[in-house]
């Protein structure tokens, strides 16, 4: 199969790779770049565990062909913290007990950061509606919503 050359920025770093036409973005991120925070859940775009930010927008990496990210910017969960300093959303999740097994967490946090960028003061209903593509089997969502609300009101969100 013909290899396609792609160049993109991931978590602030420039990368150049050769991918097959049927390579999925999630597999390139996990297997070629060893960024395993991008989780493989359902593989058909219904659980949100594979959420990453593409040019700032949350998308499903299991439904994205790697070839299509040429020239774009990707942020994975690994790209949120600055060294040892956690991102305010990560802190809020930890402080509010919003992480149990942690499998949904990277996707949840990334989608939530995108939400607050678009709508810095969401109501509870707006949070629930925006987050509806990210499923959690452990927490029952209450703490996740609380964490997002806290991050919206407390932290200086200036990104």
């Amino acid at each position, binding site marked *: 199969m013909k290899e396609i050359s792609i160049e993109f920025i991931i978590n602030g770093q420039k990368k150049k790779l050769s991918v097959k036409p049927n390579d*999925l973005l999630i597999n390139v991120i996990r297997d070629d770049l060893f960024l395993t925070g991008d989780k493989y859940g359902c593989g058909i775009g219904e659980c949100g565990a594979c959420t990453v930010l593409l040019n700032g927008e949350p*998308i499903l990496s299991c439904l*994205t*062909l790697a070839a299509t990210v040429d020239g774009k910017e990707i942020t994975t969960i690994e790209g949120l913290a600055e060294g040892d300093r956690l991102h305010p959303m990560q802190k809020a999740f930890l402080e509010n007990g919003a992480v149990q097994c942690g499998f949904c967490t990277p996707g949840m946090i990334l989608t939530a950061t995108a939400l607050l960028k678009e709508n810095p003061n969401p109501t509870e209903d707006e949070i629930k509606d925006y987050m*509806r593509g*990210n499923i959690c089997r452990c927490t029952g969502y209450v703490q996740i919503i609380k964490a997002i609300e806290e991050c919206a009101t407390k932290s200086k969100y200036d990104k």
Partner: protein
Amino acid sequence: MNQFKYVSPKTKDEALRILKEEKTNACIVAGCSNVLPNIRDKILNSKLLVDITNIEELKGINQEKDKICIGPLTTITGLINSEFILKEGKVLIQAAEQFADPLVRNTATIGGNLADASPAADSAAPLLALDAVIKLESAGQQRDIQLKDFFLGPEKTILREDEMITGIEFESSNISKNGCFIKLGLRKAMAIAVASIAVNLDVRENKIAQVRIAMGSVAPMPIRLTATEEFLKNKEINNGLIEEAINKVREEVNPISDIRASEEYRRYISGILFKRAFKKLTLGS
């Protein structure tokens, strides 16, 4: 996963040339939110994916005189954020807000939703209620088709093997601005509609000057309930009329039983959805 080749043309003409050469070997793709699951399930076995997301002329929402023109690459999120659509055809926004979830909406396109032609397609009923026209092009040829003639059956459209969707248009008018969309699903998000309805209405002095009723998931393709529309035209609005219209709706739909609902339930609920949509539109008048 099946192997395939991938190309990403930069212009519409290039894409159409590829379609002309490759015909059924090629599949136009954009967001891939439906295409990839179909490839993995071996429902789609194309040898060449033609990614059109870099073709600028297929993007954007414009107004030309009375016509609102939607580029097929407009994402569902793009629809929701469009001031034009909010003002001129809010029934489409109501549907977009219930489409899948925000993650899918960021890449799924209106062109893809129509080309996939599921009878449950969320953008179909509102566009039918807006009396939309769909623009199809092949190398050297263009044709405009009424959307109600575009769908032929489940996942079947009149698209020829060398054609692609290059635009969706509807006319701005009183009736286009006054619409209501209701989707009934087994859950609030990521739901394939059990039944959906879009009603656009123009009322003058308590009489129905014009009404358009479109439904999804109650027939082999998204449909306009033209017999019910004809029945309602020029009639005075009262409870008796609504009850009669509900019966007409139930006679006109042609649902099946499947894993999501029975035929009887779909037929019954079609009438209820019509009543709810109609009442929402006439509240206060």
